[in-house]
């Protein structure tokens, strides 16, 4: 993912403004996953894909007004978020998310009544992330569990970790408070932790 201020991104923006198809194809490939992560926070799978497709067509005209006050990625994500919010407003629906509890029930059940570990983590994850990722079965398991995350948690996780947005940007794009973003991230991370732990202990997903 390119940094907003890189000369490469500046060149890409100029090519997009000139309507160069090859640059659009490159941009679609680079930025669509993040745009989908934003849309999936608000909408179901097929509506999210539809919104992202529509956004790309909108971008062809809107890019002429892009002044570079934010990076291209943040600008695209905001377009998607605004479209999704409009769609929700028109259908009078709201994103349903539970921000009340920051500990996953499965993890919470591993502490006793005094707040100490009853079932502490047994194994230490020794290998580096890159080494672990050489295990294809673990990758498949991660995919499965990432897909099973609630949309809100997955979107927060993808924007913050994978697409490396700053917290402020994620809050703005997803329309959540900073404290609620922290809850979403922590819940999602715990689920991944529990998954990796089970995988390491049993070899099963």
């Amino acid at each position, binding site marked *: 993912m390119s940094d907003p201020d890189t000369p490469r991104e500046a060149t890409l923006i100029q090519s997009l403004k000139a309507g160069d198809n090859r640059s659009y194809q490159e941009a*679609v490939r680079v930025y669509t996953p993040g745009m989908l992560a934003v849309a999936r926070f608000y909408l179901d799978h097929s509506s999210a894909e539809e919104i992202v497709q529509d956004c790309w067509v909108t971008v062809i005209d809107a890019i002429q007004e892009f002044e570079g006050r934010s990076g291209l990625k943040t600008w695209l994500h905001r377009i998607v978020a605004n479209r999704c919010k409009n769609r929700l407003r028109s259908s009078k629906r709201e994103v349903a998310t539970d921000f009340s509890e920051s500990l996953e029930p499965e993890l919470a059940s591993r502490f006793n009544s005094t707040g100490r*570990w009853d079932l502490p983590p047994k194994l230490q994850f020794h290998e580096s*992330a890159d080494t672990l990722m050489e295990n294809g079965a673990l990758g498949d398991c*991660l995919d499965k569990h990432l897909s099973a995350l609630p949309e809100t948690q997955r979107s927060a996780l993808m924007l913050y970790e994978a697409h490396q947005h700053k917290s402020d940007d994620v809050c703005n794009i997803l329309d959540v408070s900073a404290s609620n973003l922290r809850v979403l991230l*922590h819940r999602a991370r715990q689920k991944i932790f529990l998954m*990796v732990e089970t995988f390491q202990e049993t070899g099963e997903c």
Partner: protein
Amino acid sequence: MLMCRDLAVIASDYIDGELAGRQNLSVKMHLMMCKDCRTFIGNLRASIELMKAHSSTQPDEELLRRIGERVAEALIARKSHGSESE
């Protein structure tokens, strides 16, 4: 006193450096004394790194192709519309 369960609640905030000074210090002190929580924090951190390494976000090729085609068509339509109005 910070208990293991309390630490688990704020573990992500600690990892991301989001805790205020005093709370951060009490987590550090707890970690010095508690091996289980050290393992937990280490493993949570490793899980985050693993997620980052994995989430090269494999795109849905079919969707990317559809969007690419739609954008290409829209660009052609825009160009032909532009040349008609000239």
